[in-house]
């Protein structure tokens, strides 16, 4: 029997001292610059092989094997520059002196339950802002805005309190894992009350998880079904690939005991279960699960007819305008000290800043156009967060400040079918991470040298630094000679340049970042054009495989290296199978596998 360990994968990995020699086949040098193999299929093969190793070795005792494979993937990604990582997000939060709010952690503010916030100025309503969202149904949620609100109303069995990566029980007393590590037995807390429907029992858990996998409204069923980028629960599928209703291996043993069976041992199961979609709602609440009529229409449930176990209840929900939550007095843990929480839905930076300096928002962000790094007076705490003050604001107030690296990586991706490895490496040579962070993002970022952020690096902080030191493409400097050299080896020169189009979000910052790269390579063998696309367009063009170079970001919803790496498996990046069969990044990296290359 195992008791629930906080932190899951990363915490147990952090102590792992054996640094595994990078370079899966020993052919790389890690001396600093130059001499990175231009044999594209070597890297693609290395990534494919490493991912298969991860999938084939799921047990807890194979942690070291997996870590080795993760490093191989990171190395293959970096050296073949199939994506060019340039920045990890750095999030900042400001709040007025009369607000007493716990510091948030690397997983982000959407994990923070606001019953822990106190207002010392006598106000009874906590005021925040949020982005627009159309609903608060846990299984429909795929964005930060809705999950910020959902976290207040609904709760999963386990959580990362305040987004700090140390897992804690929320609705369970503990759990047991069977000998073969495939059956989880959860012991539910007794006396947990829903807002409307009385006490929570095991049947509610079974219903909620069935709904998450079976309902046509669910957008994240794969988090329950797939593995290792999800739970990997045992289930049956019909001819069309849909889950057979009732076949999910979740069972209520008695009122307070639930059993979950997974296909393979999977160290990330508990981490995945923190995701909002696994939140518990009362059995039979909505009729989108076979065998249930539904007490309320889904149309109402997703907006105002909410019913969860969280510290707040829904009061007002006007889409694109405001959300007001009121305190749930029978909450099973600490009842909130405020009477209500109000979210004004504001997205425009000018409006956001106005709303904040009017003191209408108690906790807020400062748009980059109004942000001045010299106003920060902060020092690092034991978790590497910058804690201090910021000020003065326009209204004369000095406010509290918290800055912390988040589990988000920003990158330029390349479609391997359209862009050869020499050109990709040229981009890596001229990329100056620090310059992009400072000049384009006003210093609000952390330079990236890998895809997996340092906070969840498989071999811990020392391992990360070692990997960072071996960065082969002149980190933080513009190495035009290196770029010219590698381009010339492929026959691209000033007179006969490689032409490429870079597609970014509709965003000045990403255009500026790409523009920096364009200007450095122009006249040196690569001529680049910039274009912008709406997010949806970018994604669907990614599916079609007709992007050459594009900007995107990846955010980790829970602490797991696999949850970022599954998208690099070369066979999973085949865009011809997207979105139906493949869910990797839009790289077409499979074209460089030795089994697919012509030579």
């Amino acid at each position, binding site marked *: 029997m195992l008791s629930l360990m906080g932190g899951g994968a990363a915490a147990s990995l952090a102590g792992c001292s054996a640094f595994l020699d990078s370079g899966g086949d020993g052919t790389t040098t890690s001396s600093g610059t130059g001499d990175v193999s231009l044999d594209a299929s070597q890297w693609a093969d290395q990534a494919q092989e490493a991912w298969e190793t991860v999938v084939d070795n799921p047990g807890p005792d194979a942690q070291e094997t997996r870590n080795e494979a993760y490093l191989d993937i990171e190395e293959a990604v970096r050296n073949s520059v199939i994506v060019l990582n340039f920045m990890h997000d750095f999030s900042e939060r400001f709040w007025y002196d009369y607000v007493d709010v716990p510091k948030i952690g690397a997983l982000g503010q959407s994990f923070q339950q606001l019953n822990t916030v106190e207002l010392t100025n006598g106000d009874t309503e906590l005021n925040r*802002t949020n982005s*627009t969202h*159309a*609903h608060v149904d846990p299984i*429909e949620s*795929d*964005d930060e805005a809705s999950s910020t609100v959902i976290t207040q109303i609904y709760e999963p069995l386990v959580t990362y309190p305040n987004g700090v990566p140390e897992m804690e029980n929320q609705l369970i007393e503990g759990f047991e894992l069977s000998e073969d590590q495939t059956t989880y037995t959860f012991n539910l807390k007794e006396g947990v009350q829903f807002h409307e429907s009385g006490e929570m029992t095991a049947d509610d858990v079974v219903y909620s998880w069935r709904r998450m996998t079976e309902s*046509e*409204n*669910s*957008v*994240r*069923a*794969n988090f329950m*079904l*797939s593995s290792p980028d999800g739970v990997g629960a045992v289930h049956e599928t019909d001819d069309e*690939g*849909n889950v057979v209703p009732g076949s999910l291996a979740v069972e209520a043993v008695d009122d307070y005991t639930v059993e979950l069976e997974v296909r393979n041992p999977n160290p990330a199961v508990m981490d995945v279960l923190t995701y909002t979609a696994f939140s518990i709602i009362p059995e039979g609440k909505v009729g989108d699960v076979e065998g249930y009529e539904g007490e309320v229409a*889904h*149309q109402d449930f*997703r907006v105002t007819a909410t019913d969860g176990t969280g510290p707040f209840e829904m009061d007002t929900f*006007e*889409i*694109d*305008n*405001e959300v007001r939550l009121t305190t749930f007095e029978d909450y099973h843990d600490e009842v909130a000290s405020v009477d209500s929480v109000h979210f*004004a*839905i*504001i*997205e*425009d930076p*000018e*409006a956001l800043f*106005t*709303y904040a*300096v*009017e003191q*209408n928002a108690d906790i807020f962000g400062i748009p980059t156009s109004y942000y001045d790094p010299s106003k920060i007076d902060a020092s690092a705490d034991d978790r590497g967060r910058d804690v201090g003050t910021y000020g003065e604001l*326009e*209204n*004369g107030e000095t406010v509290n400040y918290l800055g912390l690296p988040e589990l988000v990586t920003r990158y330029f991706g390349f479609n391997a079918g359209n862009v050869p490895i020499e050109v990709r490496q040229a981009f890596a040579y001229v990329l100056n991470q620090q310059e992009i962070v400072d000049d384009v993002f006003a210093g609000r970022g952390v330079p990236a040298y890998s895809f997996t952020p340092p906070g969840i690096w498989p071999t811990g902080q020392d391992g990360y630094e070692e990997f960072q030191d071996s960065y082969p493409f002149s980190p933080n400097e513009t190495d035009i000679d290196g770029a010219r050299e590698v381009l010339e080896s492929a026959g691209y020169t000033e007179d006969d340049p490689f032409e490429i189009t870079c597609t970014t979000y509709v965003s000045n910052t990403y255009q500026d970042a790409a523009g920096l790269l364009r200007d450095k390579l122009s006249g040196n063998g690569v001529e680049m054009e910039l274009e912008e*696309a*709406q*997010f*949806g*367009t970018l*994604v*669907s*063009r990614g*599916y079609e495989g007709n992007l050459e170079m594009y900007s*995107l970001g*990846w955010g980790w*919803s829970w602490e797991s290296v696999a949850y970022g790496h599954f998208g690099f498996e070369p066979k999973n990046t085949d865009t011809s*199978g*997207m*979105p*139906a*069969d493949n*869910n990797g*990044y839009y790289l077409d990296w499979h074209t460089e596998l030795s089994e697919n290359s012509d030579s």
Partner: protein
Amino acid sequence: MSRWRYFFKRLLLAVPILFSVMTFLFIILRKGPLDPVAARLGPQASGADASRLREQLGLNEPLWDQYIRFMTDLITFSGESWVTRAGQPVAEAIASTVQVTVWLGFWAILLPLFIGIPLGFYAGLRPNTIGDYVASVSGILWLAMPNFWLAVMALAILRRTRGGWFGFDWYTIGPDISSLVGQSPSLAFDSLQGVLVDIKLILPAAIILGSASMAAELRIGRTAILESINAKYVETAKAKGLKSRTIVWKHIFRNALIPLIPIITNEAFILIGGSVIVETVFSINGLGRLYFLAITQADLPLAGSIVFLFTLLIVFLNVLQDFLYTVVDPRVGVNNE
């Protein structure tokens, strides 16, 4: 041809216009590069979830069936939003935003009318005087300033009035308001105080939205007056010995209005597009912003319904324009036998 037959004909003509606009929109959004499923699910979605949503939205049906369903939904204002308000009935989404946009548009048209036209007439009646120069130059300056910049400046200045920087506090002049942004007018119209608050909340946005048309009305009003003032019938009226007051109001004013009518009705159309920027900066939950989001996220049912509504409105305004012509200028249209 009677006046009513004339209007009826205009209305009938609107049907093919509506039809082709909707068909065009359907083709652009369905065959264009935007994918509603990708927009809704984001890059972390799995293939299975994406194909299920595709099925659920009916995107796997033959295009012809999709087209028929789209058109039926439009005409009956049924259907659900795909992305922007995912799952919300279109009628509900529009109803929740249209009031505030109408309120904004109402003031954005009304304010310029009562400022721009009188100023233009004032300048036109006193050509080449100091007053004329001041009015004309300030009108051109006003026209030259882009809406988004004006909106940002208005916020920056008004929020600084809290400490009395400029000798007044916008937040407490008249009815109190707590914020310049994100405050939707209640539009309950149940008390004078409530109406005043609603006006105050929308006022900065409305003035900015109407700024361009205010300047246009001023300049065209001035020219129109200048033209009529030298017309023969004015001379005749003068020769008859009419009081200049009567000449101005009965003869010059009414004739000068004619070129202004299409300007004013076309403004309504410009306001619909212009409201996107102003609604965004002032964080007003209106139809302009909703339309912008819907069209950029390939939310076909929602974008379609809003365009349908806009088209209806424009057709209606065109008819209204013709009607106003007949009122102001008896020579127009109804009797061409």
